């Protein structure tokens, strides 16, 4: 065995070589060093993805946990968002009915209607005189004879107010209160109370979704953290050897952190696909339902922005989970 070590070539002088290496490290430009640093990171990114790909089942299981945790709140949120859009359209169908006092004369009622018509919140006012209301009721209800037996018209004059499109619920409510306190008005009624209840419920649901999302997010942290912890445990020998030959903690951390990001991105991607498929599945029944209401509502999915948000969120959660595990467990592994 004669390796070429015995050759006393000058370039094999380690000390002068060490010096020249150092000198080279100092003279390579910032740009070069930056690109070397970038290349190092790029290498780690690809390398950590390769590690995941070599254990596809375990990787998919972790990504699956993340995907479920992300898809559930994301799907619920998309549904709620659609419901809010739909009910927002209903809000514009809200009507205010003013039942005027019995003793009010028609001219007074007309003047009042004109006054209301000029309010900025109001689109249109329809005056339904008591006589006309009675006539209509007589025709449509079939109680004509019974009504004939009454001496007086029991129905009041009614002003039906159509709020302008885009006026919010709060302002309409205020309008009802102001008009309701007027002398001429017996009763002011907003045909929207059920809608308000719906809004309140949706608000509660939104909060519930937020809580679920936070809890599931913590779940993702723990899932990724645990996977990375096992990863670290499996690579104990490699970590020890690397530390012995001069790896910094940052260097050893890096592939695990990128691993966490990969898990998260993969989970986010699967969640995106799951939510999209789910929306596709319920699109048909929704079409049928909205067809019944003649509204032809088009279900809104996650969209590109929403999907990217899922990816980013997954990546960020994966990174955080990995960071938690790495911080705790890498320090404990030292060569002995």
């Amino acid at each position, binding site marked *: 065995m004669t390796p070429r070590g015995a050759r006393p070539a000058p370039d094999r002088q*380690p000390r002068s070589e060490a010096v020249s*290496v150092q000198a080279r490290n100092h003279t390579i430009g910032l740009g070069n060093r930056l690109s070397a640093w970038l290349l190092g990171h790029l290498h780690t990114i690809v390398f950590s993805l390769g590690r995941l790909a070599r254990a596809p089942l375990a990787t998919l299981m972790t990504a699956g946990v993340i995907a479920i945790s992300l898809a559930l709140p994301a799907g619920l949120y998309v549904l709620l968002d659609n419901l809010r859009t739909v009910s927002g359209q209903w809000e514009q169908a809200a009507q205010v009915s003013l039942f005027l006092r019995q003793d009010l004369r028609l001219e007074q009622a007309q003047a009042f209607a004109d006054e209301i018509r000029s309010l900025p919140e109001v689109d249109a006012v329809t005056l339904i005189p008591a006589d006309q209301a009675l006539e209509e009721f007589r025709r449509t209800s079939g109680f004509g004879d019974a009504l004939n037996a009454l001496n007086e018209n029991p129905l009041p004059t009614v002003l039906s107010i159509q709020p302008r499109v885009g006026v919010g619920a709060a302002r309409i409510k205020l309008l009802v209160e102001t008009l309701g306190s007027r002398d001429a008005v017996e009763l002011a009624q907003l045909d929207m109370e059920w809608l308000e209840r719906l809004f309140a419920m949706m608000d509660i649901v939104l909060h519930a979704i937020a809580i679920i999302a936070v809890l599931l997010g913590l779940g993702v942290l723990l899932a990724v953290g645990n996977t990375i912890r096992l990863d670290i445990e499996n690579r104990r020998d490699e970590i020890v050897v*690397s530390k012995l030959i*001069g790896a910094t903690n940052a260097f050893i951390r890096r592939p695990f952190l990128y691993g966490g990001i990969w898990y998260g991105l993969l989970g986010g991607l699967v969640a995106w696909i799951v939510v999209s498929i789910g929306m596709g599945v319920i699109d048909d029944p929704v079409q049928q339902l909205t067809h019944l209401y003649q509204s032809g509502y088009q279900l809104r999915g996650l969209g590109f922005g929403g999907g990217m948000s899922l990816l980013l969120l997954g990546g960020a959660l994966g990174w955080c989970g990995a960071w938690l595990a790495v911080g705790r467990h890498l320090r404990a592994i030292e060569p002995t």
Partner: protein
Amino acid sequence: MIRFQSVTKRYPDNAEALSSVSFRLGEGAMAFLTGHSGAGKSTLLKLIALIERPTQGEIEIDGLNLAGIRGRHIAHFRRRLGIVFQNHGLLMDRTVFDNVALPLVIAGFRHQDIAKRVHAALDMVGLLRHEKKLPVTLSAGEQQRVGIARAVVNKPTVLLADEPTGNLDPELSREVMHLFEQFNQVGVTILVATHDIDLIRSLDHPALRLDHGKLSLDTELGSAAE
């Protein structure tokens, strides 16, 4: 250069593994470290590699006082050392090339430089044709030589070896020692822990002898470069 000044190492639960050990190994020198099992050979090497810290005394490597090296400076210090383990310490899921390249990757070398140096190191230990193999497919002697190539690829100034021939037959052991001598000829300071007395006798290098943590005599070992 390696200098120990009254170094004592006491493990938490134990008697002294090293008792007031003093010696100096000049730059470019090569020496053996011998002694019975439990004499403290591994402990002495671990102190140099900053795996353990001395209870008392001072250690100086290449003019650096090790007591002052802490935190992330430990990693940078270790890059000056080449360490050969008894159980070779190779990563079984990486190719021979990747194993040898690891110190260079860690030190942040550029891709082209890494390939050049790894090939040179593998050529030196006569394993260039095995670079794409996984370590499990190599014999024990070949694995040990991969470990040596990894230890020298970053051109260390100090090479430490802890029973590098423990698993090898006499023929292979001699080959490994010849490799160390070749690195020593190009100026690397080398300290090899072994209890293979026959092998030590057959080679012309001084031996530090540990007995229950004590060095037989305070030793000044000359530099082979002189």
